[in-house]
């Protein structure tokens, strides 16, 4: 059964990082690595909009710069049609970016990608058959990491905006991590203000969210 494919055109870099971080990817049965001549064949196929070499994989992990923009667009289109998870890594990506809408997409820095988190991500998939991108982004304790990051960002915002009354629609400066939305129902976090804005008592509304985050963190810690 095909599971996850890793497409890498920069084999020396992969080998260097795997050696440095003691990752043995070639031993993972569930992982198919496409590189060298196989990569060249794949590139030719993608150029002709033929995706048979990628058919059946549940997740595609690829070096971002291995593709031209046109090729990348067609891979994204393929992932959209087949609901395949897409992970793109590169040395040129400074901020890890997760898109939770279908198809799920994760953009991640190459050093963060080739790390123990990759092994955890694949292990979690083998155990549960679920592709949990936040594990690759935040590690094993991803829920606690996401909650803590949100609480820290919120605390900074509140300290910079004491007594704030009104909040615009789509207030971005609080910096909510995208992965938070995947657990907001589970922890009953009220995030409706992001889309609706707040017309009064914004400080109190956000302080309430801070309390919700604290109890969510406790819940995860003492589960």
């Amino acid at each position, binding site marked *: 059964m095909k599971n996850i494919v890793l497409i890498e055109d920069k084999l*020396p870099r992969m080998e260097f990082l795997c050696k440095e971080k003691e990752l043995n990817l070639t031993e993972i049965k569930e992982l198919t690595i496409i590189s060298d001549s196989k990569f060249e064949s794949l590139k030719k196929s993608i150029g002709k909009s033929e995706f048979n070499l990628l058919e059946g994989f549940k997740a595609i992990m690829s070096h971002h710069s291995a593709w031209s923009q046109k090729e990348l667009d067609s891979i994204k289109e393929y992932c959209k049609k087949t609901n395949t998870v897409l992970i793109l890594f590169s040395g040129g990506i400074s*901020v890890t970016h997760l898109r939770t809408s279908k198809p799920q997409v994760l953009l991640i820095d*190459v050093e963060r990608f080739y790390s123990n988190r990759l092994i955890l991500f694949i292990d979690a998939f083998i155990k549960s058959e679920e592709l949990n991108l936040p594990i690759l982004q935040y590690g094993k304790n991803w829920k606690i990491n996401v909650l803590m990051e949100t609480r820290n960002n919120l605390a900074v915002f509140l300290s910079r905006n004491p007594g704030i009354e009104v909040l615009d629609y789509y207030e971005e400066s609080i910096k909510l991590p995208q992965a938070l939305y995947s657990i907001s129902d589970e922890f009953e976090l009220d995030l409706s203000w992001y889309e609706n804005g707040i017309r009064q008592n914004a400080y109190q509304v956000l302080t309430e969210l801070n309390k919700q985050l604290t109890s969510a963190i406790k819940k995860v810690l003492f589960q």
Partner: protein
Amino acid sequence: MEKTKIDFIVELIDSKQFDGSNKERLFKLVSDELKQIDDTNNSVKSEVNLIKKKLESIISGDFIKSENGESVKIQDNVNNSKTIHNPQRVVDLLSKFSEKSTALKFTVHEWDIEVEYKNLSEFLKQVRKEYNEFSYELKELKEKLNGKCYGFLLNENIGKSGWGYDMIKAGWSSPELSKWCQKNPDKNPEECPLTIEDPNKKISITCFGDVIQHFKHEIEVREEGDKLKRLFIDVMRSSGLFNPFLGFNRPELINLDGKTFYTDVQWIKAAVDRIFKGIKKHQKHNPELADIAIEATETNEYVLIRIVHKNSFSQGASIEVNNKLTNIRGDFSTIKDRLHNLCDWSIESVFKEGAFRLNYLCMDEKIPFKEKIDDSKGFTHLLKFYKTSI
């Protein structure tokens, strides 16, 4: 005849006084002179190209003979524009920053184990060579964008002027970076410590890597961080459209996630700012027009953004007579100037004569300025951003 530097160098080598102790000075003289020759050659090349282009435009009829026999350039106007509008080419030129096996790519990409350059100076020589191959064309198409690239890559005096919207006073040719790299030959230039802070603009640069990131976000709407969505959110916020008390309903942002294309982000923001200010002005007199929708659609060739001020129409205006829509001036003229060679720009609305699309900036010359359309949901700006064709 006056002695040239080359004569001086030759004399120095022949001189009995020349020994190992002054070889460093000689190397510097030779390298400076070679660089100058290179620059002169490029400058001559640019001049020749400019003359060639001007001759071509005279032949193609861009110039007409005036009554006194002089060549006069045909005035640029909406309906008879011969000005080059080629946003696709600008995108293709900018995509050189992601071309494999180039030094240019590594000006915006982490230096990893494949980088073969011995030191910063060798690297910058190659950058200069690659930049010179396209800078003339980029300057012709979008001078300010070219200035930004030059400032980031090659301007040794960038510490005085700065580049881009935030006037970042550092680049690859900053003497500070050069000194640091000489002292730290085994380290990545990205690690060079730098401090640039501007709390008003929310800038906090602590190392050269931050400068690189800043540049990347000035020449490309990037996927990470959903920068297209952020761009609209930022501009709408600064225009006051997000304030719940201003009278606008929450603007709809549709399908803006994950879109990416090369452009000059600074000038796109400036143009979009004018568009929103226009909407705000119109709504002030018509408070019921409180709905805005921004939607992106995508093909393999382009990303099309529609900014719709719902139910706002131009039914009083005729497209058959000269007015501010057909013979643009004021804000529309500014928008056109800012978007020129960055994207196609059209508007759609219902006019006295019915629903029409007016194509102010259109790369495809076959498309007429006025197009009849079936319907319009409100005054709409259409921005078409091309993807790289290479």
